[in-house]
């Protein structure tokens, strides 16, 4: 069964002449226990796709599912519960509450949901992301890479049905970025975690099992077991097909 899917999803921003069609009748599904990357040039709708499935944003038409639950039919309260219990997030920046320590940030979702933290699992996750001696530090005392590792740990601790990562390495140098991606990869391989990651970086995307390419709000192509070189070639093809949009490296 798919961990999440979108059926005929459309999202239109604005109205009339200035309306922008960010998603145009997209149908896509993300398999459980797999690492999927969504790629595409700026404005292709990849972030919108993720936000709509995660219940952060609402679709103009179509249906989004987490597991077999219809996210689009949910009210705000149900969507809050969904985010709390079944989804993990890793953002590009500002992932952490600045006044809380690393460990407090990691268990924040459990505190919000008022559920018990699985102690041994917490320890496993913390040792996985090498944060043991940084737990009592506040975000300002951590490097960018360490901050993202805290965010990864936070997403993993709740064992959510699906983790959405939005350009998780966008603000990091290549070494720190590679570290984060290895953690995500291992979470999928060792703990059977489902991850959907939005990225425009071919190297980052190459860690995924499968890549969904978006262009102009539509699924343009797919690729499984990608390598950076293959992704680059593919992107080049796509950009030639859908010029004048370029493969922007800007976020």
């Amino acid at each position, binding site marked *: 069964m798919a961990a999440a899917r979108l059926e005929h999803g459309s999202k239109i921003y604005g109205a009339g002449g200035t309306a922008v069609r960010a998603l145009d009748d997209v149908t896509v599904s993300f398999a459980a226990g797999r690492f999927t990357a969504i790629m595409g040039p700026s404005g292709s709708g990849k972030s919108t796709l993720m*936000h709509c499935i995660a219940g952060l944003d609402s679709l103009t038409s179509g249906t989004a599912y987490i597991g077999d639950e219809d996210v689009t039919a949910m009210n705000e309260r149900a969507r*809050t519960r969904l985010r709390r219990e079944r989804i993990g997030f890793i953002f590009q920046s500002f992932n952490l509450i600045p006044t809380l320590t690393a460990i407090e940030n990691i268990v924040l979702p459990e505190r919000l949901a008022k559920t018990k933290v699985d102690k041994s699992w917490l320890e496993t996750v913390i040792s996985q992301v090498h944060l043991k001696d940084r737990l009592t530090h506040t975000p300002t005392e951590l490097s960018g890479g360490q901050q993202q590792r805290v965010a990864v740990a936070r997403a993993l601790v709740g064992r959510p049905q699906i983790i959405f990562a939005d350009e998780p390495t966008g603000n990091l140098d290549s070494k720190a970025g590679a570290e984060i991606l290895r953690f995500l990869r291992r979470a999928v391989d060792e703990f059977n975690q489902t991850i959907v990651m939005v990225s425009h970086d071919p190297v980052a995307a190459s860690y995924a099992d499968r890549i969904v390419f978006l262009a102009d709000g539509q699924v343009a192509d797919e690729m499984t077991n990608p390598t950076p070189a293959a992704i680059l070639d593919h992107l080049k093809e796509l950009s030639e097909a859908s010029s004048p949009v370029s493969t922007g490296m800007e976020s």
Partner: protein
Amino acid sequence: MTLIAWRSIVCHKLRSILLALCVVIGVAFVAGTFVLTDTIKNVFTQVFDQAYNGVDVSVRTRSDVGGAWARAPIPADVLTEIRAVPGVRVAEGDVFTLGGRIFDAANNPVGNQFAPTFLASWPTESALNSFTLASGTAPQANDEVVIDLEAVTAGNLAIGDLVRIQTTRGTNDFRLVGVAKFGTANNLGGASAVLLTMAGAQIEAGRVGLFDDIAISAVDGVDPDTLQDRIQAVLGPKFEALTGTELSTETSGTINDQMAFFSTFLLVFAAISLLVGASIVYNTFAIVVAQRTKEMALLRALGADGRQVIGSILIESVVIGLLASALGLLGGIGLAIGLKSLLGLIGFSLPAGSLVILPRTIIVSVIGGMSVTVISAIAPALRAARVPPLAAVRSVTMISPQRRRSFLAVGAVVGVIGVAMTISGARSTSLVRLGLGAFCTLCAMSLLAPSIVAPFVHVLAAPVRRLRGLSGQLAEENATRSAHRTANTAAGLMIGTAVIAAALLLASSVTTSTTKILDRGMRADLIVGTGGLAGLGSDVTASLRAVDGVANVAPFRHGVFKIGDATKQLSAMEGAALDVTDPNAALDLDLVSGSLRALDTDGIAVSEKIAKSKGWKVGDTIPAVFATGPHPLAIRGIFRSNAFGDYVVSIATHELLYPDSFDMIAFVQVVDGTSISEVKSTITTRLATIAPAAKAQDRVEYAGVIQAQITQLLNLITALVLLAIIIALLGVLITMLLSVFERTHELGLLRAIGMDRRDVRSMVRWEAAIISTFGAVLGVALGVGLGYALTRTLRDQGISTVEIPFRSLVFMILLITVAGVGASLYPARRASRLNVLTAIAAQ
């Protein structure tokens, strides 16, 4: 969520402390008022309980007018009747009246000039004596005196000294033989006491053969209530018998009433402080929530629901509120201790006794402090809950409250209601309606202020731009960037300034009106008075008449009486002194109809205002009731100027109706062609022997004294509002700190492109100056409006002219601007010390 709230407090210690401080001051004010007045009440209750401990029953004449000093005395034979009542162990009459004045060796009056001095007899039966001897002996001869310990200490008197004492009879020397305490207190609640033998007191108080009260001690085993009933039955309805407990309750009740008035007066200003504190808390939370938009969105994305977000902010406010309330309560107790010793320093020494901290004080302080903080945080918390989770990923930097139309509409409606109520209050001379109107107008002004920030600041900042160039321009742009923030920060200053401005306008109007009344209505050349409650006594006027160059001396007396249920003030003058056709007229009351010369012992003159409201005209008889009984008076004249009272009778009538009829002041007319100042100096020399407390003043000096009293009251009000202004300045400090923090990145940029530290400092300071001036100018505008309405409301109290004190108002605006700049010195320094690189890196 508690953790997040707690961390938000701990990680922003300075902000939290300043915020708490804003509330602490208001709460301390409330708590201090309660503790002080409760303590004073308790002390007096204890003192009176103790003092009346030995008195089982006390008898006095019944009075329909009430008031301790308006009773007819008791004839001496009543004492014989009482002694015959079974169950009476001992009964003793006493004299106890207002009207003594003690002088020290240098002929200066001893004790507080605002507190009365009592003239009383020293009871021979110790059980019936409220006083106890601290040293010396009881008076034996008519020229021997016992004085309270406080006055003896203050006047540096010693047993054996000859002490000058002024009584209603005159000024004489007495031998000090003893020093007394009242219960455990050094004096009678701030009042001095002159204690003579019974015969001496009767002579000095004009009570020969008469008593003020009769105190009775019961035979063992006879219940005071039973004895009270027996005595009452014997004496009949002209007298009333009270048990010692009733007397004590009544006396402390009078003091409780005075304390209630005192505490209400203080609580009004405490409420202003709390109101300003609330506006600062609201503003701070609004700014902080806006700055934490991303954090709120992240929480929502991680699964926090709206309620949890609201909770995190409200918990923060609860913690700050609790902390502030607790500190405020402690501060209030400290304040009460300080004020208590301050009262001691100015002569109102209170007997030792522990501070009274009632549960009510704690409850009101905590609830007050908590509700001010929590209620002010509700709107920002609700705004925080509306942050969509998507804001965590999108570059929505900040949710600033947009200027909503509903906001404006509510402000406009409240404003119209407020102004309408203020005007109607002023028209109908209703202070309550005026107060409500003023409150509504203030609230409306706070709601509407954001929409006038931009144009106002633009005009205000024009000279700053010219003077300070780029820093000035940036300061102006920063001030207008968030109209809400600027307006809310200025609102606190506006409230405080408005109250002071209104008080200033009222004071200057009263002064001008008084001067005008004196110019027009005062015909006397000199005014002789003591300024105290004791008055001149009865022999001074006669003595002044004999002074060379004095054409006439017109005494002025005063008293209270009742018409229906209402107690009214009454003045007494010779009819001739009010007759403007008489060359020796002392006052011109502006006669409307009838005649003032015709005042006889059955006649009264009333002001036009009273006559109109009651429908009275000359010839009507009004049902006046005095302490000595009912005495209908016919209206002989109606006058317009009520500066000297609404009801005027002749001196003869006053003597007839009041047991203690003595002159309060005397108006002196100088013979034409004689130098007023020469006569004045002759009178002054004479007064030094016959009435050392009295002073002769010409019209200018007299006006000066009144002006000084007004200034004193104005200073008191200013001092009380000052706390609110300090809170508002703390608000400026907090806002500027938060603004500097928020603009870290852009300050870094400005520094990077060449702005030097001094420019940065100047920019922050000018922004604070603009905000403060905005608040002060709005406050002055509002205060002048309210002050004008207030003078109109009080127009029947003798405020005939409205005078706007332009110089003082402008000075106040400047002062507040400077204070605002002072409050921004620290934020400005912080802004200028930012490290350029880290500042640019900041988000």
